[in-house]
């Protein structure tokens, strides 16, 4: 654990930045938290709305087990305390995107208590310093609807499709001290949520948004007054908000002003935050336990199932990749950062082990290298990702097996892989059809080498006369004569012998 040295250099000296994040993560579920309407993104306005979501008179909430389960699993993934007793409270305020006039949330008895997330501060160097950021709590609550302002000159339009979608609010402690730490925290949190499967982490679609709490202080002094910038929807913007807001606060303070505790909005186009006057008088939320809902009590069987269904998490996986699979720290970190990469990699490794009849640790390094260099390089070039990869893990494993058993040379393997990307065909089939099999047939190679030697008597002379650089020429010519398919090791040996 290291102290952050990030400072805002003001006219009166250096300022330390204190950051806390409230991340709203949409819980992955088919139906909404308290109604049976669907949660899918991008539907026609007000089609994924039940009468409950529209807060019609007499409508009542009925909670979705899966949303509770996912919040509990998420809590377990960050080693948090799980509260077997929790309650839903109403947060009362008036806004057009809030049909009930209150949001059902959890203030007094959240479902998840204190936990923690460890981040690597320099993600390029996986063995660099780490920092543990405290998580204060996770509670479950309803999302609001959406207001559209651009459709009409004097009216705003209300779409309630998101109204009532389940969210986890993951509240960190004010433990972060720099934009980099905050960025690392959000990325790590996102990675964990995606491993657990409790949130798809899709920030563009609003599945994850952060409320960014920022204050500044002279190092060692008490916390300053904080501002909260709402609904920041990318890691880059989170970092930009912190930098901008910290600088703004330092300017205000150094000019003799005071920071007002307020809600602010980030404008990514102008890269600035501004006060949200529309929410100004909504401070008194009059929280009280929702009388439509009884206390939520979780039994041991429910908790046991939640725990049993947790996958291996990124930190544990990374360590295992290094110790059991023998991967480099960098490769292990890269492969475990995203759950899709891990899944693809583990599938590739198990298919490879099966195809080659070897243990996973025997095939893992080659698999990791191929995935990180060859496959990622190709996908990059094609503008694709693992999900849309034209090559499956099983197909990759077949290719790697052909390299391992000497059927393909590195060069041939690259050639076959290119064809696989284009056609989607299996490596074996390509090798068969195009005759790309590497040959170690000494007879054929000896024949080709003999012809090259016979055809280039002058060069043989020069070589034998001491111009050893010419050896490469003979190798090249022999390989060419073999159509590139000769085993280079065998070619070398035969030429060495033939040229004396």
């Amino acid at each position, binding site marked *: 654990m290291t102290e952050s040295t990030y400072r805002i250099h003001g006219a009166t000296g250096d300022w330390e930045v204190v950051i806390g994040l409230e991340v709203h993560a949409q819980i992955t*579920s*088919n*139906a909404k938290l308290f*109604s*049976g*309407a*669907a949660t899918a993104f991008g539907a*026609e*306005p*007000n*089609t*994924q*709305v*039940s*009468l*409950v979501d*529209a807060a019609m008179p007499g409508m009542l909430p*009925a*909670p*979705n*087990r*899966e*949303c*509770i389960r996912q919040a509990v699993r998420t809590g377990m993934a960050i080693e948090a305390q799980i509260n077997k007793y929790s*309650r839903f409270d109403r947060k009362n305020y*008036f806004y*057009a995107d809030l049909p009930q006039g209150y949001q059902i949330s959890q203030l007094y008895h959240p479902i998840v208590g204190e936990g923690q997330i460890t981040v690597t501060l320099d993600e390029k160097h996986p063995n660099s310093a780490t920092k543990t950021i405290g998580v204060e709590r996770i509670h479950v609550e309803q999302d609001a609807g959406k*207001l*559209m*302002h651009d*459709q*009409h*000159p*004097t*009216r*705003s*339009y*209300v*779409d*309630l499709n998101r109204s009532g979608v389940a969210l986890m609010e993951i509240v960190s402690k004010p433990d972060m001290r720099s934009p980099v730490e905050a960025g690392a925290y959000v990325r790590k949190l996102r990675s964990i949520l995606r491993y657990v499967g409790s949130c798809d982490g899709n920030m563009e679609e609003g599945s994850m948004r952060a409320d960014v709490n920022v204050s500044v202080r002279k190092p060692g002094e008490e916390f300053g007054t904080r501002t909260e910038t709402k609904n920041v929807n990318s890691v880059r913007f989170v970092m930009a908000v912190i930098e901008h807001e910290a600088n703004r606060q330092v300017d205000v303070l150094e000019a003799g002003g005071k920071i007002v505790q307020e809600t602010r*909005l980030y404008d990514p186009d102008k890269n600035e935050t501004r006060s*949200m006057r*529309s929410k100004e*008088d909504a401070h*008194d939320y*009059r929280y009280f*336990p929702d009388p439509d*809902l*009884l*206390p*939520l*009590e979780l039994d041991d069987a429910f908790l046991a199932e939640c725990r049993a269904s947790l996958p291996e998490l990124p930190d544990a996986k990374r360590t295992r990749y290094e110790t059991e699979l023998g991967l480099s720290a960098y490769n292990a970190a890269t492969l475990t950062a995203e759950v899709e990469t891990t899944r693809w990699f583990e599938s590739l490794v198990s298919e490879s082990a099966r195809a080659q009849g070897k243990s996973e640790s025997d095939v893992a390094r080659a698999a990791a290298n191929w995935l990180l260099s060859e496959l990622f390089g190709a996908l990059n070039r094609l503008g694709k990702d693992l999900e849309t990869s034209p090559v499956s893990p099983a197909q990759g494993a077949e290719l790697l097996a052909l390299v391992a058993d000497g059927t393909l040379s590195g060069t041939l393997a690259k050639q076959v892989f290119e064809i696989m990307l284009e056609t989607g065909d299996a490596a074996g089939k390509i090798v068969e059809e195009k005759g790309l099999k590497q040959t170690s047939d000494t007879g054929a190679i000896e024949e080709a080498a003999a012809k090259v030697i016979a055809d280039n008597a002058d060069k043989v002379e020069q070589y034998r006369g001491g111009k050893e650089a010419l050896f490469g020429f003979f190798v090249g010519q022999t390989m060419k004569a073999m159509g590139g398919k000769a085993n280079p090791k065998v070619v070398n040996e035969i030429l060495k012998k033939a040229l004396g």
Partner: protein
Amino acid sequence: MERARNASAARMSIDLQTVKKIASLARISVTDGEAQALVPELNNILGWVEQLGEVDVAGVEPMTAVIPNTLRLRDDVVTDGNVREKVLANAPQAEQGFFAVPKVIE
């Protein structure tokens, strides 16, 4: 300790400004006359409920469920929605599948 705090908070009587603040929180517009009339009315009622402060509630949990019962959880199945006509049927102003409200500046 707790009782003393409760009692002192409850003893506060409300004035015209407080009535206006409550009305604003509750989003009910009131004229000055209405607010003025509400001051004694609300004080009467609050003064009367204030007697609860004298009850010794040490060690007593606030009631959460009148009849012992715990929260049931439903299955994660889509059973509702796709009822836009029903949702919008009573709207004072609905346009292009949306509810319309005066333009909001955020």
